[in-house]
């Protein structure tokens, strides 16, 4: 009798748990649709005609499939130029940050020298300056240095970042000192030790820097706005932003604009899917950027 009651109670419990599971999945799927659907609409609309984009916005399947938006983007607009500029800037910025951030991070973690605390304080001060405040100041200095309207002006100010130095510094500190002591005793200089012994061990942190720098410089907008006004130096973010605000064309042109936004998302999306696991565990350190 008591065992029977217990079994039926347990069955109820299992039933309740099952229902809760179903409800949980239904909720999650619903939320996931909200998060994914806009991007699917974006892909679909980029293959629609302009009139269909306006009249049939919500559908995921174009009635008349056309690649006209892409054709115009690549053949009759400056889009390829913008893309090339973004690639150049991103590659230089990423390479620069990987090298300079790890170099400085290593010095702060390991080398003893007078003034280290000053550098440390400088980095902390710099990190608390909000990016938006820098628009006018950056422009003033870039013009003063006469690198306005040049790749140097686009790239050099972004070449290092304080947050990246801290990520590298913290990682180097987690590597046991004994690893490099032997090399130093054998007479290897600081750079040698850093370059061929410690740096290869910091691969996870380097990947973090690569992800953050790539994403940061690829998606950067405000710096490119103030650093040049040369049409030859327009990057993707700036070009697409001007396209969107109608500074360059007329009409709604939604398939074209969405195709442009889509293509500019692809490199970051690829990076995201390759390093997904890594990104999921590093982003907490990246929010500050």
């Amino acid at each position, binding site marked *: 009798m008591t065992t029977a009651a217990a079994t039926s109670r347990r069955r109820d419990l299992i039933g309740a748990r099952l229902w809760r*599971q179903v409800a*949980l999945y239904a909720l*999650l799927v619903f*939320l*996931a649709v909200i*998060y*994914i659907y*806009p991007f699917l*609409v*974006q892909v679909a609309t980029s293959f629609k005609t302009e009139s269909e984009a*306006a009249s049939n*916005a*919500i559908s995921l399947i174009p009635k008349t499939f056309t690649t006209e938006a892409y054709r115009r983007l690549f053949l009759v607009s400056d889009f390829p130029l913008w893309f090339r500029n973004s690639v150049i800037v991103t590659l230089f910025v990423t390479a620069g940050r990987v090298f300079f951030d790890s170099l*400085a991070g290593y010095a702060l*973690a390991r080398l*003893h*020298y007078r003034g280290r*605390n000053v*550098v440390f304080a*400088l*980095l902390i001060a710099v990190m608390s300056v*909000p990016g*938006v*405040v*820098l*628009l*006018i*100041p950056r422009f003033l*200095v870039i013009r003063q*240095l006469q690198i306005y309207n040049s790749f140097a002006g686009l790239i*050099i100010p972004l*070449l*290092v970042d304080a*947050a990246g*130095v801290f990520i590298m510094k*913290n*990682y180097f500190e987690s590597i046991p000192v004994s690893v490099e*002591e032997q090399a130093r005793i054998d007479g290897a*200089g600081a750079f040698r030790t*850093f370059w061929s012994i410690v740096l290869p061990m910091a691969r996870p942190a380097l990947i973090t820097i690569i992800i953050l720098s790539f994403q940061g410089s*690829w998606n950067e*907008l405000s710096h490119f706005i103030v650093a040049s006004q040369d049409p030859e130096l327009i990057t993707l973010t700036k070009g*697409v*932003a001007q396209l*969107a605000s109608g500074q360059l064309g007329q009409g709604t042109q*939604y398939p074209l*604009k*969405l195709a442009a*936004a*889509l293509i500019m998302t692809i490199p*970051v*999306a690829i990076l*995201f899917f390759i390093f*997904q696991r890594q*990104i*999921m565990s*590093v*982003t*907490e350190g990246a*929010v500050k950027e």
Partner: protein
Amino acid sequence: MSDRTGSKACRAGSSGIRRGEAVAGWVFTAPVVIILGVFLLIPVVMALWVSFSDWGGRGSPLSGRVNFVGFDNYTDLLFESGLGARDFGTAIKNNFWYVVLVVPLQTALSLFLAVLVNNAVLKGRGFFRTAFYFPSVTSSVAITVLWLFLFTGSGVINQILAWFGVHGPNWFNDPTGVGHALLANLGIEQGPEFLTSHGFLNVSWWDWLSGPSMAMTALILMAVFTTSGTMMLLFLAGLQNVGHDVHEAAMIDGATAWQRFWKVTLPLLRPTLFTVITLGLIGCWQVFDQIYTGTAGDPAKTTLTPAYLSYSRAFRQQEWGQGAAMAFILFFIIVIFTAFQRWLLRERTPKQPKEKRKPAAEGAR
């Protein structure tokens, strides 16, 4: 990224190894110091000078023809009643409503998502996490373009609203304030005299009550959509530190899932919660990309933000002094929030020795 932060990490070794370290130390840090100094510190000092000057964009701001005008640019913005001051007040008002709505919404949503995804037996955990996080990696420009399309008059959002019999507004062209619309529903069309005749920052109290416009509301939803993924990851990291044993103990004591969340999980998440809220506060005062790409402050200046106004005052209208002054007032607002965050976290640091991965920003302290 490790526990061992702080400057004590390197122990003194034998002096033979130390030789040349001073030189190497400076050489290694020189690029970072020079670039940050030249493109961050010096510019800030220069702009500070500009904010106290009458520089009009011609020639160098450091040349002899530029005059020192004291706090004029600041007082013009804060205490006068010219167009510049009115625009600035409006921008602050707009951004104020943006902050007031985005911060609680993104915090609540990201916490909710994190709790859902953190479920141990959940299948497809990775998929859901990816789906919620993906909008965070895309650029603000690309998302704004998409948003402009989704929120057109006959766009996707309004079609979905129509399924529920709701006639959606023409979002990005509608300057109607949500607050005023709600009051109008209650029959209050005109502000009472004591609200319309007094105000703050050249904006009457009645206008402060207008709330965000429909256009701004669309941008608010966009901010929640794009930031909730990042915040969710922060909460997930926090939840992993809470640990299962605490939950089991509470479960054995007969606490329901609801009670466990409010009485156990949330108090233990306090440090993360503070981080998320203050990061949100700091980020939300810097709205620029979306306005530049999407609305340029329109309709009827209801999406004007201080960051965008500072830019356009300087670069478009050549009123550099005023633009720079706005930037520093904004800086001041943000520094207050940053200091607030530091203060909160500093007080709590000894209480959370178990935290496994510290955010870089925190490790910097």
